[in-house]
């Protein structure tokens, strides 16, 4: 009850705040502004209280709430309980709203006593209001008896335990990656807000300095969030790579690419007063595509095409998310059309030289936007095709790599080039001379790589472009590190991009995989390393809902030993039907040795035979006896006792003296694996026992079905079965460059903030 009241209060204060803020823009109504601010504070209190209330109920395991029952359980560790907050749709809308509200407080402070406050805060608050309205229809505070109203559940019913969190996700990354992503998403609402404000207030210049620091922070954090997801996928989820062009990844990448282009076009406008309309459009689009990403991942339209699972949120939320996009895009677009004439008058005549820095930066931004367009087209394709009544299709992800690699070559070269160029200058004469050294050095480096084994033309071009960008940025980094440390941000970020692309090309294009199957203490060689399976031990034994094991593999080369331990675990989450697998990674400076577990099998050392019906073989323990399978009889009375089935195998033993015996071996088979614990039968007159332990069914030819018989000497104990561990070894060269590159990109944005952030404050003070 309280939770829902708090959401209604959020909507109430939200409406008041939007109205007061916007009305206070009117001449002579400035006195209303303070009511807008007070209402915003009221909304903030409601949002924060609602969030605390939800979190408190999660921590208290109050499973009366459907949402908490669905995404939480008493077995979860505290920091996974925190993650339950945003594990479902309702909670993630809630988190988004909470972060927006906090950002709004800062925005309110920043715009306070400026001409922007009324309009900017009005627009920004309306976005929060929209999410609050969604939360009325899709509430995390529904009780189970409300959700299942048609089932006549009594009021006050409390489920004993929640359904818990998918064990795949139970990793510390789930407490870090989603919130960072949401902070990034939320910050992208600021460019939209400022772009629309600039249109409404006809201030096409002043907003640039205000929006730049916000955009730098937002782009840095969103980029960090995206790549954390990649690291998580690589390191624990065992996807084998950090990027799979999955729709969920793509939909977060789209606003990021647009934001990166936006940063560059903003810089052009700061220096040259050009690209005014472009900047307004891009400012609007970054946020529109955040909402679009939400729509793609929350509406269920991509159901069949992604490894991520989606829930259809119901028609109301689906339609509201469409309305969200249409309204905010429409609003921005209509104002842009209305102001086009005005902007054109403001611009005046101006020529841009092809040799100037602004020209190159604009070109680079166009390339980035083209890349964004490719990702948008590819990601939306299945949804759009269905919308037009087309047959369902999936896109081939190699398209992204194809376009991506061409565009990457262009923008890396443009980046290197732009460093030597000047703003507002058309001089070319000294440019070529400066380019000789980095170009030559890049060619030499590519040649070295060529002789090591770089063969693909695409990769050669990408490697060249990466080196070119890397070297030029290094040069400028070195030149300015003492002289002008404030300008270093751009060089660090571009250095990072070059490293990231280099790492992606080499680790993606030149990774190699081999399968290794090892019995305990067995050693096999692959890629020049000796792999030994040294045993396993159970971990996280304090949890009753799982059986989790580390499988230790010793990796040895030239006497140097290291350990990588993939994890295999069974969980109540899927009734322990199949294991969950996590890779083990041995990280070296220049490469990762990546072990992904494939199978754990128990192999008995006992003598065994696999016989088709009417095959005859000599008994391994007694050469005087031959054995054959006569028939299989399914025990009809006991068919499918739970997950098991009783199978009687009639076997015939022929002795040297011409006599023979029939024996019936009864096996309790697991209905999915068709394996059984041995039930030993002594064969009369011999010194051995026999058991039928597995049925190998041939699905193509039923006559080919074989029974696996184990034999042991009567009265002897059976040896423990050996564990056989099968895993893939993948060598990932230079994968570390991807992570180092990412960190450099993010760091660069923050360094740039020290340059543009200060100016921003100064500008505000000037007003």
């Amino acid at each position: 009850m309280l939770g829902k009241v708090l959401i209604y209060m959020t909507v109430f204060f939200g409406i008041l705040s939007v109205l007061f803020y916007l009305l206070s823009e009117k001449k002579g109504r400035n006195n209303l502004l303070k009511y807008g601010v007070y209402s915003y504070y009221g909304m903030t209190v409601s949002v924060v209280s609602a969030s605390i209330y939800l979190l408190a109920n999660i921590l208290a395991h109050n499973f009366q709430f459907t949402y908490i029952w669905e995404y939480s359980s008493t077995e979860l560790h505290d920091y996974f309980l925190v993650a339950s907050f945003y594990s479902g749709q309702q909670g993630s809308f809630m988190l988004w709203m909470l972060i927006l509200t906090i950002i709004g407080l800062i925005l309110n402070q920043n715009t306070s006593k400026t001409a922007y406050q009324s309009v900017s805060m009005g627009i920004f608050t309306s976005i929060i209001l929209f999410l609050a309205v969604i939360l009325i229809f899709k509430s995390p505070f529904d009780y189970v008896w409300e959700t299942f109203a048609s089932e006549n559940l009594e009021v006050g019913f409390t489920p004993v335990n929640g359904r818990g969190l998918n064990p795949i996700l139970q990793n510390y990354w789930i407490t870090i990656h989603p919130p960072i992503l949401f902070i990034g998403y939320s910050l992208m609402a600021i460019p939209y807000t400022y772009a629309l404000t600039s249109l409404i207030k006809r201030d096409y210049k002043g907003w640039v300095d205000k929006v730049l620091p916000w955009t730098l922070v937002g782009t840095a954090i969103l980029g960090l969030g995206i790549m954390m997801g990649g690291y998580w996928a690589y390191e624990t989820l065992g996807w084998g790579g950090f990027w799979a062009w999955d729709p969920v990844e793509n939909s977060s990448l789209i606003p990021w690419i647009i934001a990166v282009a936006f940063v560059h076009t903003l810089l052009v406008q700061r220096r040259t007063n050009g690209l005014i309309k472009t900047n307004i459009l891009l400012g609007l689009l970054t946020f529109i595509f955040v909402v679009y990403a939400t729509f793609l991942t929350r509406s269920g339209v991509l159901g069949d095409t992604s490894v991520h699972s989606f829930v259809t949120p119901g028609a109301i939320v689906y339609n509201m998310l469409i309305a969200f996009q249409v309204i905010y895009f429409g609003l921005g677009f209509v104002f842009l059309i209305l102001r086009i004439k005005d902007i054109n008058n403001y611009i005046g005549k101006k020529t841009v030289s092809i040799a100037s820095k602004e020209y190159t930066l604009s070109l680079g931004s166009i390339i980035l936007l083209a890349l964004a367009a490719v990702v948008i087209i590819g990601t939306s394709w299945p949804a759009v095709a269905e919308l037009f009544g087309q047959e369902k299709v999936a896109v081939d992800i190699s398209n992204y790599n194809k376009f991506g690699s061409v565009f990457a070559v262009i923008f890396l070269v443009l980046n290197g080039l732009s460093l030597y160029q000047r703003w507002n200058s058309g001089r070319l004469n000294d440019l070529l001379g400066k380019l000789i050294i980095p170009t030559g050095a890049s060619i030499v480096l590519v040649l070295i790589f060529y002789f090591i084994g770089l063969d693909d033309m695409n990769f050669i071009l990408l490697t060249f472009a990466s080196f070119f960008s890397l070297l030029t940025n290094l040069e400028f980094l070195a030149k300015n590190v003492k002289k002008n440390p404030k300008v270093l941000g751009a060089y660090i970020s571009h250095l990072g991009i070059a490293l990231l692309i280099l790492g992606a090309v080499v680790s993606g294009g030149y990774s190699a995989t081999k399968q290794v199957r090892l019995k305990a203490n067995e050693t096999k060689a692959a890629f020049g390393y000796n792999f030994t399976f040294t045993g396993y031990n159970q971990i996280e034994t304090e949890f009753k809902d799982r059986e989790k094991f580390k499988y230790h593999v010793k990796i040895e080369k030239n006497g140097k030993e290291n350990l990588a331990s993939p994890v295999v675990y069974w969980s109540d989450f899927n009734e322990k039907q199949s294991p969950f697998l996590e890779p083990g990674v041995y990280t070296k400076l220049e490469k990762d040795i990546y072990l992904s577990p494939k199978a754990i099998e128990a192999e008995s050392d006992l003598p065994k035979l696999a016989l088709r019906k009417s095959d005859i073989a000599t008994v391994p323990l007694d050469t005087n006896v031959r054995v054959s399978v006569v028939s299989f009889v399914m025990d009809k009375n006991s068919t499918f006792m739970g997950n098991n089935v009783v199978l009687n195998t009639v076997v015939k033993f022929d002795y040297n003296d011409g006599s023979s015996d029939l024996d019936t071996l009864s096996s309790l088979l697991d209905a999915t694996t068709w394996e059984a614990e041995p039930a030993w039968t002594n064969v009369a007159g011999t010194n051995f026992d026999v058991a039928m332990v597995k049925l190998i069914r041939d699905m193509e030819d039923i006559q080919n079905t074989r029974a696996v018989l184990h034999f042991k000497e009567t009265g002897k104990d059976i040896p423990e079965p050996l564990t056989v561990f099968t895993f893939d070894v993948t060598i990932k060269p230079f994968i570390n460059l991807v992570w180092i590159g990412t960190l450099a990109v993010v760091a660069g944005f923050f360094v740039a903030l020290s340059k543009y952030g200060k100016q921003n404050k100064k500008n505000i003070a000037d007003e």
Partner: protein
Amino acid sequence: MKLKYIIGTVIGLAFIVIAYLSFDSSKIEYADFSNAKASGKTVQVIGSWDKTEQYHYDSEKNEFIFKMIDESGGKSLVRVEGAKPNNFDIAPMVVIKGKYEGEKFHAKEVLTKCPSKYEGQFDELKGASLYN
């Protein structure tokens, strides 16, 4: 000024057409087993594991074989390169991508879906309750 926009628009449109054609020519259609067999093309098939048949993982060949029922009720053996996919046993829906080679469908990729785990069903609620 006008000319600049016209050139820009033409280049932009040309690019979008190129991207469209590229995706269009390589798109992977959904099909059922009979169509997949007839066309021999790389397709995606939606269906579920035929639980009356046992699946089999061969760690020496590194292949996983199971029988699948497509949405129109057709059945086929499916060979997957690699191990049994995560959540295979509990997934009510499987999406495979690949093509026929002989009598078996060779799947390059397998997606397993378990939507029921994401939104609670009423019987689960009862199952974990005081009634238990």
